[in-house]
């Protein structure tokens, strides 16, 4: 349809007329809708600095959909820098509600200018053709500013769909008092984990940790850490699903073993029962993402001072690895009437040091920005909850060990919901996890075929 199958990333800083840029953006928009809504990778030409300055000097109102708490502070900084631009902040009620509304908005055309989307859901939105490629705004040059794992989530097949806001590398938060009562250290290798779990259970009555069945996020992070690549999408019509590989089976069998021996609990995570349990010491550790530490301080306040952070146990002692849980990006919607201003908003919030520092230190969003991760203001923060430990520094070093090559399927809503009925159900019911795993694979392959994908 367009001539945009060329995947070469050519950036020309010299000016090209705005009309040409606008026309190619229009064509990019056209290719997204219609009978086949797999978007063509159109290459729009660079937008000149003059155009950007002109747009930022024009009175504009931007609609920004996000659920980051108190992000108004960063928006105020943006509005101070660009007084002509007014940003309307709108919280749609959290991630799930926002995605539903966003999809409806894309169908109807009444989209916001900027929206927050978590990494696992980004491919499904790219598939709708509703996300603007930000390469014309020079975003490809921002690659060195972000941790590789985060950049890998937003930059795909030569296009840049947003800037990483935060990441969730997974580490181990453990109760120092329970572990010392059992007389052991926090395990550094999965090989030692089963033995440690037994010791903890026998000597203290607590479970070493909880593996939930109501969210696929922890299990997926463990697969990510083990080097498995169960999901792949070529950006066109082919998805690759492999939940039978050795790496996947190794991880799932490992947890199956622990569950069958009743050495880990399988309560749902992040509900009232879980908060109470963790405060009461029912779980001796939480294999948590980087947003866990501050989260825990709110929900388990009475256990302050009894926690410590350390990396996950490893499969391969020589090559430290981890996986992400959560993390999101801000994107510009293709139907936005102010793409230039919207792109600058995304750039400011996620790349400007004044904003990223504040997001990290005040709103406790774990930064994806390399510069922020190195700030002593951030890494030297000592946390009384963690016995005076510099928790941010621990997670900052973990964030560098996450594999950047991980991919998600373009129908993550279904993958997540299917998990809860198959593998997640097996976890909660404590039945054979490998059977649940096979059922999960069958379901998501069937869905892919039904939706017209070529499933490998």
């Amino acid at each position, binding site marked *: 349809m367009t001539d945009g199958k060329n995947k070469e990333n050519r950036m020309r800083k010299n000016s090209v007329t705005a009309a040409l840029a606008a026309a190619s953006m229009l064509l990019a928009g056209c290719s997204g809708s219609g*009978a086949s*809504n*797999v978007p063509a990778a159109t290459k729009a030409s660079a937008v000149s600095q003059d155009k950007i300055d002109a747009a930022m000097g024009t009175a504009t109102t931007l609609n920004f959909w996000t659920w980051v708490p108190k992000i108004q502070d960063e928006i105020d900084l943006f509005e101070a820098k660009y007084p002509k631009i007014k940003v309307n902040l709108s919280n749609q009620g959290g991630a799930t509600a926002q995605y539903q509304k966003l999809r409806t908005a894309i169908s109807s055309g009444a989209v916001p200018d900027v929206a927050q989307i978590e990494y696992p859901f980004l491919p499904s939105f790219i598939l709708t053709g509703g996300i603007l490629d930000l390469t014309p705004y020079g975003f490809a040059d921002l690659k060195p500013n972000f941790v590789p794992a985060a950049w890998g989530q937003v930059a795909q097949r030569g296009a840049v769909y947003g800037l990483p806001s935060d990441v969730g590398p997974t580490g181990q938060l453990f109760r120092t008092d329970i572990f010392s009562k059992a007389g052991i250290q926090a395990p550094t290798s999965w090989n030692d984990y089963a033995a440690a779990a037994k010791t903890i259970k026998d000597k203290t009555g607590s479970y070493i940790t909880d593996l939930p069945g109501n969210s696929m996020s922890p299990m997926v992070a463990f697969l990510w850490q083990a080097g498995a690549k169960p999901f792949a999408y070529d950006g066109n019509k082919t998805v690759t699903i492999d939940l039978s590989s050795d790496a996947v089976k190794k991880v799932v069998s490992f947890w199956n073993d622990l569950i069958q021996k009743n050495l880990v609990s399988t309560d749902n995570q992040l*509900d009232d*029962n879980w908060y*109470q349990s963790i405060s009461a010491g029912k779980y001796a550790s939480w294999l948590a993402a980087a947003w866990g530490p501050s989260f825990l301080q709110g929900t388990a306040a009475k256990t302050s001072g009894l926690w410590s952070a350390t990396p996950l146990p490893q499969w391969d002692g020589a090559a430290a690895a981890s996986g992400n849980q959560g993390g999101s990006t801000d994107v510009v919607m293709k139907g936005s009437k102010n793409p230039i201003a919207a792109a600058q908003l995304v750039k400011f919030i996620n790349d400007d040091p004044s904003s990223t520092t504040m997001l990290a230190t005040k709103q406790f969003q774990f930064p994806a920005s390399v510069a922020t991760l190195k700030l002593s203001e951030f890494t030297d923060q000592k946390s009384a909850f963690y016995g005076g430990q510099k928790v941010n520094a621990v997670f900052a070093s973990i964030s560098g060990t996450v594999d950047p090559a991980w991919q998600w399927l*373009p*129908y993550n809503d279904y993958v997540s919901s299917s998990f809860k009925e198959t593998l997640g159900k097996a976890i909660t019911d404590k039945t054979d996890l490998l059977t649940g795993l096979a059922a999960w694979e069958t379901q998501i392959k069937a869905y892919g075929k039904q*939706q017209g*994908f070529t499933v490998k």
Partner: protein
Amino acid sequence: MSVTTVRHVRHGSKQKQNLVAYSFILPFVIVFLAMLLVPLVYSAYLSLFRTQLVGGRNFVWFANYGRALTDSLFLTGVGRMALFLVIQVPVMLGLALFFALALDSGHVRGARFARLAIFVPHAVPGVVAALMWGYLYGKNFGPIAQAFTALGLRPPNLLSNGNVIGATMNIVTWEWIGYNMVILYAALRSIPPELYEAARIDGAGQIRIAWSIKIPSIRSALLLTVIFSIIGSFQLFNEPKLLYVLAPNAIGSSFSPNLYAYNLAFTNQDVNYAAAIAFLLGFVIMIVSYVMQLSAERRARRAA
């Protein structure tokens, strides 16, 4: 001569009356058309297509309906709702009838307070009710679990696979007893008291009066509550949707056909199939209600 004049005068004022009448119901008709009829027609239209993430939208006649009739998730959901119908509805209506009769007998002290107290659960918004019960059902720290622990017994997991249907029935019963009770109580209040006097003269006690006079007299109100309950139980959505957050593995995405249609539309991105499921559910409800009404009429005719 006089007839035509009278007819002429009556015709003019009747036209004006008709106009006024129509203008009164116009707001309702507009809302009815826009919010009910148009979406229904659009849904029916959508259900004849199939949209794929890759491949776009295609016209497929009634393929979606065929797929629904062989979809085990849909059929299990309908079966589950039939279970609701067979267990929860008689229990709920039985209790509502019992309370209505008890309050009507005049032997209850503080009847007005009792009426209010029984109705209050219905006034509580469904969302609040489901969240509250979700907390009550909490398997380690909910009050029910704590009561069991205090007695030295192992607290049951009320949101486990086997118990979740009963738990949901409990919530629905708790919510709707008051509503049905009020309908039946109002019907009871409209029974002419002479019947009671005649019965008392014949030496009938309260229970005999209830059985032979009150219940037959409110047959139409009972049928109304039964039909409402049939429709309500097949359309169950609120409680499973909210309990799903607390127990996603036990509830699943296709617990009730309505919830299944919702998840098909918003999680599976399969709006067309969701529309077909919704219509099929509507047909099932129509058929069951009609059968119910027919058998009730037949029974009434036999009794009369």
